[in-house]
C-alpha cells in the first residue's frame, strides 16, 4: 500500500504554500423564468426537440393511455417500482388483463436478476419528482422503491411527472427545494432518450440506455396552474 497520508499532506501543503488569489464575488446571473401558461409548453417543446414523446394525461387514467402506447410498440414486459402508487395503479388497471404486458416489480437487489433486467424487459416506468421547463428535463430521485436501473436498462423509459411539479430552471429547483441539505445516493436529470453523435455528428438513439423516452404529464382535475410554484 502506498503512503496515502504523505501524498495528501504534500498536495495540500503545496497548495497552501502558493500565493493566494482573491475569491471574487459571484456576479449576478438569473436562470430564465417562464410564466405559468408557457411553462408546460416549454417543457414539452424542449423534450420533443430531443426526440422524447410527451403526453398530457389524466392522473387517474394514465395506465390506460400507457397501455395503448406500449401495445403499439409490442411491449411484453414492463418493470416498475415496488410498492409505489404508480405500481398499484398499474396493477389495478392491467393486472386482470391477460393481454396486457407482463408487470415485473423491481423487488430484489439487481444481483439476483441481472440477466432478466439487462435483457428481458422492454420498458421501465418511473415516477419523476419534478420537471424543468428550461431544458425539458425530468428529475429522477431514485429510492429503494424506485431503483436506478429502471430508467436506464429497458429500451423504453416511461416517466410520469405531475404537472404541478414542473419548475422553470434547475437553479430554482436546487435552491428552493434545499437539495444541498438532503442529497440522496443518486439524482439523475434526464432530458431525452439515450443518444450519441460520435459517428460523424449523426444523431443515433438508444446507444446504451433507452431508445425511447415517453413522458406522461399527469394532470389532476380541479388543480390549476396556481398550484405550481
Amino acid at each position, binding site marked *: 500500500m502506498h503512503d496515502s497520508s504523505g501524498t495528501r499532506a*504534500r498536495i495540500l501543503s503545496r497548495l497552501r*504554500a*502558493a500565493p493566494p488569489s482573491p475569491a471574487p464575488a459571484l*456576479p449576478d*446571473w438569473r436562470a430564465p423564468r417562464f410564466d405559468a401558461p408557457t411553462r408546460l409548453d416549454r417543457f414539452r417543446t424542449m423534450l420533443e426537440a430531443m426526440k422524447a414523446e410527451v403526453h398530457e394525461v389524466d392522473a387517474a387514467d394514465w395506465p390506460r393511455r400507457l397501455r395503448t402506447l406500449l401495445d403499439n410498440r409490442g411491449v411484453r414486459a414492463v418493470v416498475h417500482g415496488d410498492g409505489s402508487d404508480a405500481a398499484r395503479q398499474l396493477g389495478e388497471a392491467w393486472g386482470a388483463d391477460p393481454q396486457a404486458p407482463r408487470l415485473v416489480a423491481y423487488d430484489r437487489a439487481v444481483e439476483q436478476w441481472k440477466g432478466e433486467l439487462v435483457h428481458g424487459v422492454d420498458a421501465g416506468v418511473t415516477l419523476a419528482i419534478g420537471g424543468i421547463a428550461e431544458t425539458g428535463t425530468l428529475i429522477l430521485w431514485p429510492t*429503494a422503491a424506485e431503483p436506478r*436501473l429502471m430508467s436506464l436498462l429497458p429500451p423504453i423509459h416511461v416517466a410520469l411527472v405531475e404537472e404541478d411539479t414542473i419548475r422553470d430552471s434547475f437553479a430554482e429547483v436546487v435552491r428552493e427545494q434545499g437539495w444541498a441539505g438532503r442529497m440522496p445516493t443518486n439524482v439523475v436529470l434526464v432530458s431525452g432518450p439515450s443518444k450519441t453523435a460520435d459517428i460523424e455528428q449523426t444523431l443515433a438513439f438508444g446507444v446504451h440506455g433507452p431508445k425511447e423516452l415517453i413522458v406522461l404529464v399527469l394532470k389532476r382535475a380541479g388543480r390549476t396552474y396556481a398550484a405550481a410554484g
Partner: protein
Amino acid sequence: MTVDAQPDAGAPKAGSFAERAHLALNDKPLRANFRRAMDGLMAKRAAQFPDAADLAALRARGAAIKERALARLPDLLEQLEARCAENGIRVHWAETTDEANRIVLGIFREHGVKTVVKGKSMVSEEMHLNAFLGEHGIQAIESDLGEYIIQLAGEMPSHIVMPCIHKNKGQIGALFAEHIEGQRYTEDVDELTAAARRVLRDRFAEADAGISGVNFAVAETGTLVLVENEGNGRLSTTLPPLHVAVMGIEKLVETLDDIPPLLALLPRSATGQPITTYVNMITSPRCEGEKDGPREVHLVLLDNGRTRVYADPELRETLRCIRCGACMNHCPVYARVGGHTYDAVYPGPIGKILTPQIAGLDVAGDLPHASSLCNACVEVCPVKIPIADILVRLRREAVRPSASNSVQGAAVKGAGDGWTLSESSVWAGWKWLHANPALYRLGARALALAGNLIPAGVPPLKAWTSVRSKPKFAPRTLHQLARDKGFDDA
C-alpha cells in the same frame, strides 16, 4: 523591424508539431472530417447563445465560480474529502499518474476484479489507465461509443468531447466489420450504433467494476456530477458492484448552487446542446434497502503537476477549465490539423497551455508556438481562461524561466529549454534598433533603399515565401513621407 525572426524555421524537426501537421494537412479525408465537424459545432454553439448579454453574464458567473473554488482549493479538497467520508465514498490522493494507477489497481485487486467498464474520462487517459490495468491482467473496456471506437482502432482520442471525430462512418464501418463478430460492413450509423450496444451490453452486465471521470465535485455535499448523453456513464457507475471515479484536483466547486450555471455553460459550449441527456449526481454508494448501485464508491484525486500549475497565479487560470472543448472547436489550427497532431492527451488550445505545464516545456515546447494568437478560443471559453496570454507566458518561460512561487525550481517544468543564442541575439538587436529612434530611422531608411535585395532564401523569409511572395519594402518610409507632407512631429 516587424520581421519575425525565427532561426529554426525551415525543415520540420522529427516528431515536432510541424512535422505531424504536415502529415495531417496532406490527409484529405481527415481534413474534411474535422472541417465539417468543427463548422457544425461552431454553428450549434452559436445557436445556443443567441443573446450576447445573457452569455456574458453566464460566462462571468462561470469564471467566478471556478475562480472562487481555486482560491479556496486546499480547504475545499478537505471539505470534499470529509463529506465523501460521511457519505461512504472513500477518497484517495495521488501525486503522480503512476500512484493513481496503483491506487486503482489496489482497489481492484482487493475485490478480485477481472473486467472493468469505463465511462469517458480524460484523467484516465492522462493516467494511461487502460494500458496499465491490461499489463496487470485487468481488462478495461471503453463504453462511450467514441472511446470504444478508438480503443478498437488502438488510437488516442483526437478531441476531448468527441474522441473519434477524426473518423468517418466508412472507416468506422470497416473497423466494426473487422473486430465485431458477425458484423458486416456498413456505413449505416444506426446499425453501427446498435452493434456497439449489443457488444457492450454484455460487458456492462459482466463487469466487476466501473470507472468514471468527474465533471464537477461539490465540496458542500460531497457529490460527484457526471454529464453524458449515452447512458454508458450511468451504467458504468450503477450496474457493477464497485465504482472508482478519478478526477483532477481542480474539478471542485464550492456549493451545489454552482452546478446549474456551469451546466448551463458546459453542454452548450461543448456540443451546442441545451443540456446533456443525463446529468448524474452521485453522493454515496448503495444505501441499506436500495436495490441497485455500487456497494462501494472510491474517488481518486490526482495531482499530476496541477499543484505546480496552481503555484503561479497567472498559470493557475489554466485550472478553471471545465473540459468543454469549445476552444478546439473554434481553433483555426485545430480545425485543420486535428487532435492527433498535438501528440498529447489534451489537444487544441487548452492542450497547448496544459500539456507543456504537465509534461514540461522541454517535451512540449513547440505547442505554445502552434498558435496564431487569434483569440478565438478566448472568445468562446465558458470560464474565460486567458489562453492566448498563457500561451505567451509559456513562450516566455521557454526562453526566460521565472522562479516558482512555492515549488522547487522553475515555475514551469522544463523552462528555459527553448532558449537559443541566435534567437536571443536577434531580439537583442531588435531592441537596440527599436528603443533608439534615431537608429531606427536610419535602419528603416536603409531597408527602404536596399531591403528588397535581401534574398528570399534566408530563414524567416524562406518559410514565409514558401506560399507567399516576398514583402516589398516601400521606397520611402512613413516617417519620411509624413515629414515630406508637413505633418507635425510634436
